C-alpha cells in the first residue's frame, strides 16, 4: 500500500532533503506534493489528499501547529507528523492536544521513513 506524503517546510533545502530521503526509502512511500508555507500547504492538502503530512512548525507567518489545527478541524483522522528544528516539551504537549501523531526533531531526519510507515495508512 502506498503512502502519499505532503511535505510542508519553508526551507527549500529541507523539502529537497525530505523528498530525497523518502524517495530513497521507497517501500511504498511517495511524495505527493510540497508546500513552502501555510496557504500553499492547505491548498496542496485539499488538492492531493495525502495520506500523511510532514509539517515544519517554525515557518514565517502561520506556524505548523496552526496549519495542523485547520486541517484536523476539517479531517480529524489526517495523519500529521510535526518535523521541527526546535522541539521542546511544551510544543510536543500542544501538538498532542491538537491531534498530531508524532513529533520528530530535524536532526533525526532519517527517522522520517520509519514514522511514515508507522503512522501511515498501512499501519
Amino acid at each position, binding site marked *: 500500500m502506498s503512502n502519499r506524503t505532503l511535505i510542508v517546510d519553508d*526551507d527549500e533545502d529541507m523539502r529537497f*532533503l525530505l523528498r*530525497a*530521503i523518502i524517495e530513497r526509502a521507497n517501500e511504498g512511500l511517495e511524495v505527493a506534493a510540497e508546500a513552502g508555507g501555510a496557504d500553499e500547504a492547505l491548498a496542496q492538502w485539499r488538492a492531493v489528499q495525502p495520506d500523511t503530512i510532514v509539517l515544519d512548525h*517554525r515557518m514565517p*507567518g502561520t506556524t505548523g501547529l496552526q496549519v495542523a489545527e485547520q486541517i484536523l478541524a476539517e479531517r480529524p483522522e489526517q495523519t500529521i507528523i510535526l518535523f521541527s*528544528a*526546535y522541539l521542546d516539551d511544551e510544543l510536543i504537549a500542544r501538538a498532542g492536544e491538537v491531534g498530531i501523531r508524532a513529533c520528530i526533531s530535524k536532526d533525526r531526519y532519517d527517522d522520517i521513513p520509519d514514522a511514515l510507515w508507522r503512522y501511515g495508512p498501512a499501519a
Partner: protein
Amino acid sequence: MTSRRWLGAAGLGLLLVAGAVFSAVVVANAADSARSARFREAASIEAERVRNVVELAATEAERLAAISRSRADFGAAAPPRLDHVDEVVALAYAELDGPRLVVRTALPRNAGPLSTGEDLLVRPELELVLTRAVTEADTSAGTPIEIEGREVLIIAAPVLSDPLAAEAARRASVTGAVIAVLDGARILDEWPGAARLVAPDGRAIGPQAAGDLHRSVIDLTGRPFELLLDEPALGWSDSARLVLVGGTLSAILVAIVLFHQTTRRREAEEHAEQRSQQLTRIAEAGARLQQSLDLSELLPAFAVSLANDFELRSVAIALLDDDGMLTEVFSTGERAPGGAIELPLRRGWRAVGLLTIGPGRELDEAELTSLQALGDLLAVAMSNAQLYEREQASAARLRDLDALKNAFLGTVSHELRTSMTAIMGFGELLSDAWDTLDDTRRREMANRIRRSAGSLRHLVDDLLDFARLEQERLRVSPRRVDLAGVVRQMIDTLSPLLGRHTLDLRTDDAVSAWADPIAIERILANLVSNAAKYSPDGTTITVSVEPRGSAARLVVADQGPGIPAAERRRIFARFYRLDTPEAVRTRGAGIGLAILRDFAERSGATVTVDDAPGGGARFVVDFPTEPMDVGSAEAVAVGT
C-alpha cells in the same frame, strides 16, 4: 449659636435668681419670727410709754393745779409746763362758779380747744372727767374726744384750796380744775404701725387698726384703757433684701461668667471639631490616595472629594513634566476669573505639579493648612503613581526584551539546526547513495551543502559579532583601503546569501576609504543578506561603490517593498523586526542591522536608508576617507 448660648446663660441666671429669691424668703421668714418676738416686746414698751406719757401729763396737771391758787398763779406757772410734755397741746385753768366750771385762762390762747369764759360742764363729752375732778377731787384722764377735728385726751386735775384736808374736806375744797389737753396723734405717733387707744367706754383715739393687733390694757389715772397696736405690714427685711439683691447680682455675674466660659468652651470645642474634621479629611484623602496607583483613577476621585469636602467651586491638577512644563491633567467645577489659590505640589523639595482651587467662599487659615497638607499627600501619591508607571513601562520593556530574546534564541536555534540538518542530511545522502546518484544530483546536493554552510557561517559570524557587541568587545581597525577592491574581493563569498537573486556590482576602479576590511565585509554581508530576505526571488540586488565628496559610498539596493519611513530608524535596534507582511514571512534573528550599525559607528561611517529608484530599500553607507574621531559621529541617518 450665640442666641442659644444666651438662652442657656439666661436660663441659668433665672435659676440663680430664683435661688436667691428662695434664699431671701427663707431669710425673711426667719426674720419675721424674730420680728414677731420683737414686736411683742415693742408693743409692751409702747404701752408702757403711752401710760407714762399720760401719767406724766396727769402728774404735770396735778402739780400745776397744786401751785395754781388763782388765775394768776396758773398764768405764771403754766407756760413752762406746756413745754414740759410734748403731747400736751393746751392747758386751761377753770374755776367753779356755782354750778359752772368756767375757763379763766387757756394756753395757748388760740391753740387750745378750750376757750376762755367757756363753761366746760355743759360739754357732755367732758362730763365724766370733770365730774371726777370737781366732785371727787381726783385727777382723771377722760374719754377721748374730738375737738376741732383733733382727737384729744382730756386730763383734769382738781385745784384744791386745802390740798392736805381729809377726803371729804378735800372734795369740798375744790375750787376749780387744771385741764390738760393731750394730742391723741402725738401720744400714739411713735408707733410705726397703726395704734389705737380705747377708753373703757369705747371711745378711742387713733385709726381703726387692721391686721394683727397687739392688745395691752394700761391703767391711765386709775381707769383701764386698751391700747391696740397694729403690727407693721410684713416687708422684706434688710438681710432678705441684701440676700435678694446680692443673690440676683451674683446670679447675673455668674450667668455672665458662665456665658463667657461656655462661649470659650464652645469655641474651643468647635475649633477642636473643625480640626478633627480636617484631620479626618486628610486621613480619608490619604487612604483614598493609597487605593490606586493609576493617575487616571486617582486624580478624579481626589479632586471631586476635595471639592465636596471644602465646598470648592473648582479644582484643577497639573503635572510637571521632565522639561519643567505644567500640563493640566484633570479639572472639575467651573472656574471663575480671579480668586484662585495655587498650591504647589511638592515631594520633599522637588516640585511635581500644581493644585489650583477656586474657593467658593473664604477659607480660613486652618482650611488652607489642611489643603496644603492634602496637596502634599497628593504630591506623594502622584510621585508614587508616576514611579509605578515608569516601573511598569520598564517592566513591560524588559518583558518585551525578554520575549524578543526568546524569539531570537528560538530563531537562532532553528536556523542553526536547519542548516546543520541540511549539511548533514545531504552529506549522508551523498555518502550513502553516491553510486546511485547521477552527477547532476550529486552537484546539486553539494551546492546545497555549500549554501547551507555559507548561511551557517553568516549566522555564526552574526552571533559572534553580536556577542562581542553585548560585551563591548567589538573592535575595528580602520586603515587606508580601496573600498571598491575590498567589495569586489568579497562579492563571491556572498553568493550563499543571495538565494535566487541576482547581484549587480557597480564599482569604480578604485575608491579610497578609511575603514576596516572586516567591518566592510560584515556591513556588506548583512545588507546583501537583508536585501535577499526581503525582496522577491528573481529580483536584482545592486551593490555599488563610488566616491562621494569626502566619503567613499557603498550602496546596496533591492527591489523589495522598501522600508516604511516611520520604521527607518527603529530597524537598527537589536531584535527589532518589521511588522510588514514581507517581514512576517521572512526568517530573521533581528540582529543583522544592529551589528551593521555598530560596525558603521565604530568605523566612523554613516548609514542612510531611503527608497531605491523604482521602489525597494536602498542602504547607503558613507565611509570616511580620512582618519576621524569616531566617537562624535552619528552612525545612522534616516533618508527621505
